């Protein structure tokens, strides 16, 4: 196969195109995805039904009764051309409190051991970095944040937990996330965040959006409870 040039527009389905802006996880590529999504937002609700941004691509579902893929290709190219010279989109910095400890993050010590670090060093590395929301998916409100320092990158658990508690701060490879609700999951749990990541009944439904910058602020046990946090029972991993 010949090397792909970016941006590259590919068919996804009869009423969907996907635009690839690059091939890996990089803030610059993610910013281009965000710029394209924002540039096309004015068509949402009409010609465009859904925009699904991810790490390096944007999936665009269109309404085939109002337009076709040729029209959409033209709009994509126009948007890419007009936004090429623009500056970085508005990117908010969102701070998420995190109570890191063995009682709130049952994989913290093991992850530290495997990395040859102390738990305190893991906490410092995790909370000193600034992350970017690369994608939201897997479950409502599940934001994929990247990238964690290579030193604390950790593979998924061999046996996923059947129940990861709501608010769990977790690492998988070089990604990190806060579980928005109780769900099965194989990520390494290192802490708990008391901020709700998804609320179906109140707006905004999420404290973060794709493209936002995120920083974790270490908090103690007392502040965790003050902020409304609750300690769940964790499934023991063999």
């Amino acid at each position, binding site marked *: *196969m010949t090397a792909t040039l970016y941006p590259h527009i*590919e*068919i*996804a*389905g*009869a*009423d*969907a195109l*996907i635009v690839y802006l690059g*091939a*890996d*996880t990089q803030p610059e590529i993610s910013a281009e995805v965000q710029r394209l999504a924002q540039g096309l937002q004015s068509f*949402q*609700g009409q010609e465009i*039904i*859904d*925009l*699904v*941004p*991810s*790490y*390096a*691509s*944007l*999936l665009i*579902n269109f309404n*085939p*009764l109002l337009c*076709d*893929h040729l029209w959409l290709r033209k709009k994509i190219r126009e948007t890419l051309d007009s936004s090429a010279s623009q500056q970085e989109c508005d990117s908010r910095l969102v701070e998420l409190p995190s109570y890191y400890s063995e009682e709130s993050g049952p994989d913290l010590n093991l992850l530290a051991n495997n990395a040859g670090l102390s738990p305190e060093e893991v906490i410092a590395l995790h909370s000193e970095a600034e992350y970017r929301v690369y*994608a*939201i*998916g*897997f*479950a*409502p*409100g*599940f934001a*994929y944040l990247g990238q964690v320092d290579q030193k604390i990158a950790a593979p998924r658990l061999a046996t996923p937990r059947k129940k990861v508690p709501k608010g769990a701060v977790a690492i998988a490879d070089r990604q990190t996330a806060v579980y928005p*609700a109780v769900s099965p999951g194989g990520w390494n749990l290192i802490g708990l965040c008391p901020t709700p990541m*998804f609320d*179906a009944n109140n707006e905004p*439904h*999420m404290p973060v*959006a*794709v493209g936002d910058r995120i920083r974790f602020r270490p908090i103690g046990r007392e502040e965790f409870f003050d902020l409304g946090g609750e300690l769940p029972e964790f499934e023991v991993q063999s």
Partner: protein
Amino acid sequence: MQGLTVIAPGILSLLQDAGRFGQQQIGLTTGGPLDSFAFTVANRLCHNSDNACAIEVSIGGLTLESSVDSVIALTGAKLGLKINGQNKAQWQSHTITAGDKINIGFASEKNSGCRAYLAVAGGFEIAKQFGSQATVSREGIGGLQGGPLQKADLLPCSNHRDLNLLSLSEEQQDNYPDLVELRVILGYQQDHFSSVKQAIFFSSEYTVSDLCDRMGYRLEGPKVNADIEGILSEGICLGAIQVPADGQPIVLMNDRQTIGGYPKIGAVFGPDLAKLAQLSAGGRIKFSAMDINDAHQELLLAKRQLDQLVLEAL
């Protein structure tokens, strides 16, 4: 409050409107009816809008008791409809009065399909979440409590008297053969599937495995691995065909995850997904390639045909 009370919920009965759109940026999938033709006709037989909330009955076994005078219609899979123990025809509307018992049975023969749609005049009057009433159990969103109907649930709806009863002629009804052809628009990582794999994909017969639900239909047949194992997670459209490392294709349906990291060969043409959704484990499939411009023409034609669908007064 009045409406229909659930006496027995059946295997899997879900409140659905046409689907939840414009919410994938926060990870919410679309939901909605797996067989949109049968869903739309059920609503029209009850004089409803095409987006009214109805019940998708999978496999069967739903029993309801009415506290309203209204009109209902059952379309889709041939599961059998009874009102107060009397057999009633599907694909046509029927009057119900307060106290009536409505029962949906189970398919009794092959080639009956497995998804039926029960609509009521005015639709079920439940709150919308994120702009839609569609139930997505995996997300716990939509419907009454975000999940399937439960015994004793009250499905609110109003009295609607003096409505014309309508029917759809037999020629216009869908059939549910157990061997279906699904048209595929090649796309996504198609270049990572060799021409040999693509030839195998389009010339082989696949079987629906036991792992088939509203999220996806896992198929069994000749392997069609891509030359890559995973990709950077990206948006998944309705009908996308992903192929994990075991080489067995999975067609992603209405309750799919919004993003994922398996290579995809393309997507099944939307209107053909209903044929797949009406199959259960053991159903057989053949794929054929379809050009996106032909797909577009077909979609416009299908829309025009739906707009001109003739419902006959009884």
